[in-house]
C-alpha cells in the first residue's frame, strides 16, 4: 500500500519550539519540516519548489535557455520542434547568451520576489553546453549570492563536471534516467556522441547508462541532492522503472520523478511518428503508487518549459522576453527579503493549521478516502476563481493523512469574460474521479454543470489553507466535528 508523501506521523510530531531571535537551532524556519527529512537536507530543499512539495506553494523557479546543444538523441525529442503553446521539457522559444540570461535573472528577481531557484535545463543539455552554463551561474552568483542553482542533464557528460558543479555550489542536479538495462535503453536512445564519435544501439546505451550511474554516485558522495527524472513509456520501460527506482535509490538519489511520455505525431518525434502512446493518468498514478515505497516521489512536477518563470503551474515567461528587458540592470535585494520574511510567518501558521487538519482526518476510523481538487494561485491557500484556474491540485484525504497526489490541467474557461460552456466539457473530463472542487469563487452556471456531472464545487473554504479546507471538508462529510477553533 502506498503511503502519502506527507505522512501523518511526520506531521503530527510537534516541531522543535522556535527560539527567539536566533538561528542556532535547527528550529529556525523549519517548523514545517517533516520529521522523516534530515535537517541538513531540509535546509537545502525548503525553498526549492521542485524538490519540496511544501515550498512549491511559496517559491518560484526560473529557467534560462542558455543550453541549446545536446550530446544524445532521444526518441521522444525532436530538436526542430518549437512552439510557444507547448509546455514540454526540451521545447523552448527564447535562446539566450549568458550575458542576456544574467540580465533576465536580475530583472525577474526584482519583479518576482518569490524567486528562489535558477535552473538550466536545456533546451539541450546543461552539461553539453558547459561554458554557457558556467558563465551564466558565475555572473548571477556575483549579483544574487543567496539564489539556489540547479541543472538538468542526461548524464553523459556528468562525470567530467562533478568537481566544478560542487565548487560552484550547485546543490541540486536532475538526471534523466529512463533505463538501467542497455537493452531497454537502446529502444529509447538511437545514438549518443561520445569521445569524438557517434555511437548507436547497445554500445550507445551501455556507455550512457554507465556514465549516468557513475555521475549519480559522484554527486551524492559530495552531498549534492540528486533528483532522477524518468519518462514513462508504455511497453518500453514502464515495468522496468521499478528497477530504475531501486538502482537510483541504492546510489543515494533523493527524489524520483516519473513523468508521462508526451507523444503526438505533430511533434515529429520518433515515438510520435511511430504511434508510441503515452500513459493514461491512471497508468501513471498506478506506477507512482507502486514506486512510492522507494525514494520520495514527486507528484507536483509540472514538466516546465526550459524558459519557465514563476510558481510551479504558472509561467510568466512571456512577461520577461528579451525585448522587454532593460539594457542595464541592477539587483535590489529588498523585495525578495521582504517576501522571505512573509513566508517564514505564513509557514509557521500553516504548519499549525495543517496539524489541526490532520487530527480531524485521523479521527475517522474507516478507510474512507476523498479526492479533492483545489484551485490555488499559490501560498498553499484556496485562492483561485474556478473559471480562472489553469490547473487543479489534487489532494487525497484519508485516515493516513492529506497528500498532494497530482494535478489536473484545464483550459481556463472564462478567460474571455463570458462563461463559455463549450469549454466546460474538457474541464469536467479533467476532473474525472474528483469528489469535490474547492475554489475562491464559482458562478452558478459551472456549479450546476459540475453537479450534473456528479462533482461538488464550493467556495465555502475560500482563502483557507488547503490542508485546513480539505480537513474540514473531510470531517464534515464523514460526520465528525472538526477540531478547528
Amino acid at each position, binding site marked *: 500500500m502506498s503511503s502519502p508523501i506527507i505522512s501523518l506521523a511526520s506531521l503530527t510530531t510537534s516541531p522543535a519550539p522556535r527560539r527567539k531571535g536566533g538561528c542556532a537551532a535547527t528550529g529556525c524556519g523549519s517548523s514545517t519540516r517533516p520529521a522523516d527529512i534530515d535537517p541538513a537536507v531540509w535546509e537545502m530543499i525548503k525553498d526549492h519548489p521542485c524538490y519540496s512539495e511544501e515550498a512549491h506553494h511559496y517559491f518560484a523557479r526560473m529557467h534560462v535557455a542558455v543550453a541549446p546543444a545536446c*550530446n544524445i538523441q532521444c526518441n521522444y525529442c525532436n*530538436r526542430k520542434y518549437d512552439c510557444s503553446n507547448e509546455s514540454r521539457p526540451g521545447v523552448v522559444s527564447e535562446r539566450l547568451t549568458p550575458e542576456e540570461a544574467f540580465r533576465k535573472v536580475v530583472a525577474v528577481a526584482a519583479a518576482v520576489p518569490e524567486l528562489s531557484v535558477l535552473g538550466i535545463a536545456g533546451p*539541450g543539455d546543461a552539461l553539453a*553546453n558547459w561554458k554557457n552554463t558556467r558563465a551564466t551561474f558565475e555572473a548571477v552568483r556575483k549579483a544574487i549570492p543567496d539564489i539556489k542553482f540547479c541543472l538538468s542533464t542526461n548524464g553523459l557528460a556528468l562525470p567530467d563536471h562533478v568537481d566544478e558543479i560542487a565548487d560552484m555550489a550547485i546543490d541540486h542536479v536532475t538526471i534523466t534516467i529512463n533505463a538501467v538495462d542497455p537493452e531497454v535503453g537502446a529502444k529509447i536512445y538511437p545514438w549518443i556522441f561520445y569521445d*569524438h564519435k557517434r555511437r548507436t544501439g547497445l554500445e550507445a546505451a551501455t556507455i550512457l547508462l554507465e556514465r549516468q550511474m557513475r555521475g549519480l554516485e559522484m554527486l551524492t558522495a559530495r552531498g549534492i541532492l540528486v533528483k532522477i527524472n524518468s519518462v514513462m513509456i508504455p511497453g518500453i520501460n514502464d515495468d522496468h522503472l521499478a528497477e530504475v527506482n531501486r538502482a537510483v535509490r541504492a546510489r543515494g538519489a533523493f527524489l524520483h520523478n516519473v513523468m508521462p511520455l508526451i507523444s503526438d505525431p505533430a511533434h515529429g518525434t520518433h515515438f510520435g511518428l511511430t504511434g508510441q502512446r503515452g500513459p493514461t493518468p491512471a497508468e501513471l498514478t498506478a506506477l507512482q503508487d507502486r514506486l512510492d515505497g522507494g525514494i520520495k516521489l514527486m507528484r507536483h512536477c509540472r514538466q516546465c518549459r526550459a524558459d519557465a518563470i514563476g510558481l510551479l503551474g504558472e509561467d510568466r515567461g512571456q512577461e520577461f522576453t528579451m525585448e522587454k528587458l532593460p539594457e542595464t540592470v541592477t539587483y535590489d535585494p529588498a523585495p525578495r527579503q521582504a517576501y522571505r520574511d512573509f513566508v517564514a510567518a505564513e509557514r509557521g501558521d500553516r504548519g499549525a493549521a495543517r496539524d489541526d487538519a490532520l487530527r480531524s482526518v485521523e479521527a475517522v476510523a474507516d478507510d474512507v478516502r476523498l479526492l479533492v481538487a483545489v484551485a490555488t494561485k499559490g501560498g498553499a491557500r484556496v485562492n483561485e476563481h474556478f473559471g480562472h484556474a489553469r490547473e487543479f491540485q489534487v489532494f487525497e484525504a484519508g485516515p493516513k493523512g492529506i497528500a498532494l497526489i497530482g494535478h489536473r490541467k484545464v483550459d481556463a474557461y472564462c478567460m474571455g469574460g463570458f462563461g463559455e460552456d463549450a469549454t466546460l466539457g474538457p474541464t469536467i473530463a479533467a476532473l474525472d474521479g474528483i469528489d469535490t472542487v474547492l475554489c475562491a469563487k464559482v458562478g452558478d452556471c459551472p456549479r450546476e454543470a459540475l453537479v450534473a456531472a456528479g462533482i461538488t464545487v464550493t467556495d465555502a473554504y475560500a482563502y483557507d489553507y488547503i490542508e485546513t479546507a480539505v480537513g474540514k471538508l473531510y470531517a464534515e462529510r464523514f460526520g465528525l466535528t472538526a477540531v478547528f477553533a
Partner: protein
Amino acid sequence: MAMSINADDCTACGACESECPSKAIRFKGAAYVIDPKKCTECQGTADAPQCDEVCPSGAIAKAA
C-alpha cells in the same frame, strides 16, 4: 574539400561549433556556417567529420 550546413535543416543548436577541431564553424546572422577555407573534414584529427557526427538534425553534408 569541406563540409557545409544546410540552413533549412539547421536548428542553430551550436553543437557542431564546439566540436569542430579547426574552429571552422561560426554563428553568422541567423544560422551556423562552415568556413570552407578552414574546414579540413577533420582529416588527421578524427575518423569522421565531427560536425556531422554530433548534428542532431542531419544538416551537414559534403559541400557540393
